[in-house]
C-alpha cells in the first residue's frame, strides 16, 4: 500500500504544485473555479484517453511518440504561461497606477483564464496518464492486494491535493501587491523549466542532438530525484545534469518573457510619473 501511495503521490505532486500556483494567481477572478475545474476535468479525461492509447502513442515517430507528445504539450503550457505573464504586465501597471481600478482590472483577468485552464489541463494530463496506467494495472490484475494498493493510490491522490492546497494557502498569505510580483517570477521560472523539460524530451527522442553535452553534475549537492529536487524541478526546472541546450532554452524563455513584458506592458514611465 505504501509503495502505491509513493508512486501515485510522486506523479500528482507536480500537478498539485502547478494547480496551487494557478489558483493563487487567479484568486480574485470571478468564475475562476469553473475554468480551473474545467481544466482539471479535461486533464483527467485526456489522461485516461492517453493511458488507453499508450501503446499506439509510443509507436508513433519510430517509437518516440511519448517523448514528442510530452515535448508538444509542455511547449503549449510554456506559450500559455508566457502569454499570461505578458498579458498581466499590462494590467500590473494599471494596478500600480490606480488602486481603485484594481478590482475592475482583475475582473478582466478572466480573459487569461483560458490560458491558465489549459496549463492546469496539461499538468494533470502529463502525470495523470501514468497514474491511470498504474492503478488500472493493479485493479485489472485481480491479485489479493489490489484493494490495499488502490487504497494507497487514492491516499497518494489525496496527498497531491493537499500539496495543491498548501501551495495555494502559502501564496495567498502574500499581500496583493507583492503577490503579483511573486507570481510573475514564479510563472516565468515555471515556463522556463517546462521549456527546458521539453528540450530534454526532444533530446531523448534524438530530434535535438545539438549542444547535448552535460554542463555540470550537481547531483552530489541536490539530486533531482530527491523530494526537494523534484519540487525544484517542477517549480524552477532544476535538473542535476542539464545539457547546454536545456540551459540555453531556459535562459532564452526568461529573456523572451522579460522583453515581451517590457514591449507589450503599459510603459512604466507613465505610471512612475503619475502622482501616487
Amino acid at each position, binding site marked *: 500500500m505504501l*509503495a502505491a501511495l509513493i508512486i501515485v503521490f510522486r506523479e500528482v505532486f507536480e500537478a498539485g504544485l502547478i494547480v496551487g500556483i494557478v489558483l493563487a494567481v487567479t484568486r480574485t477572478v470571478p468564475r475562476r473555479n469553473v475554468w480551473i475545474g474545467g481544466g482539471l476535468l479535461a486533464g483527467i479525461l485526456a489522461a485516461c484517453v492517453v493511458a488507453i492509447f499508450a*501503446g499506439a502513442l*509510443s509507436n508513433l515517430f519510430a517509437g518516440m511518440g511519448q517523448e514528442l507528445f510530452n515535448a508538444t504539450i509542455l511547449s503549449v503550457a510554456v506559450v500559455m504561461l508566457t502569454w499570461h505573464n505578458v498579458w498581466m504586465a499590462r494590467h500590473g501597471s494599471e494596478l500600480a497606477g490606480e488602486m481603485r481600478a484594481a478590482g475592475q482590472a482583475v475582473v478582466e483577468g478572466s480573459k487569461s483564464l483560458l490560458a491558465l485552464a489549459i496549463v492546469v489541463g496539461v499538468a494533470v494530463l502529463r502525470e495523470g496518464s501514468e497514474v491511470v*496506467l498504474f492503478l488500472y494495472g493493479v485493479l485489472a490484475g485481480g491479485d489479493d492486494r489490489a484493494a490495499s494498493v488502490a487504497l494507497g493510490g487514492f491516499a497518494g491522490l489525496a496527498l497531491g491535493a493537499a500539496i495543491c492546497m498548501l501551495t495555494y494557502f502559502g501564496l495567498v498569505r502574500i499581500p496583493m501587491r507583492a503577490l503579483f510580483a511573486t507570481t510573475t517570477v514564479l510563472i516565468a521560472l515555471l515556463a522556463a523549466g517546462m521549456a527546458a523539460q521539453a528540450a530534454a524530451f526532444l533530446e531523448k527522442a534524438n530530434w535535438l542532438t545539438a*549542444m547535448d553535452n552535460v554542463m555540470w553534475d550537481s547531483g552530489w549537492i541536490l539530486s533531482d530525484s530527491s523530494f526537494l529536487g523534484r519540487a525544484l524541478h517542477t517549480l524552477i526546472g532544476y535538473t542535476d545534469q542539464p545539457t547546454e541546450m536545456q540551459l540555453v532554452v531556459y535562459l532564452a524563455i526568461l529573456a523572451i518573457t522579460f522583453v515581451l513584458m517590457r514591449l507589450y506592458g503599459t510603459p512604466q514611465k507613465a505610471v512612475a510619473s503619475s502622482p501616487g
Partner: protein
Amino acid sequence: MSFPRTLSKATLFAAAALLALSAAGAANAQSATEIQLSYKDKKFDPAEITAPANTPIVIKLKNLDAKAMEFESKTLKVEKVVAGASDATINVRAQKAGRYEFFDEYNEKVARGALVVK
C-alpha cells in the same frame, strides 16, 4: 530602458551560438550501441546488460507482460511508460564507465536490472 535591448541582443547571440553548435553537433554524431532487453513476470531479461563507454546506447525493450510498466533509471535520466505486450525504444546518451541501475517504477522493489558501461 536599455536593459531589454541588452537582453534581446543576448537572445540573438544565444540563437547564433546555438546554430553554430548544432552544425558541430551533427558532425559528432556517433553510431549507437543497440541492446535487446525483455520484461516478463516482473523480471528483466537479461538482468544485467553491458555497453561500451562514451557511445550512445539504444535499448530495445519488449514488455511481454499484459500490464503496462514504466522503465525508469535515475542515473540514466530515463523514464518511459511501456504499454502491456508492446515494444519500446529508449535512447540513452553516451555514458562514462560505471553501473547504472534501472527498474520498473510500478514494481520498484522486485523488478530491477542494471546497465554496466565499460
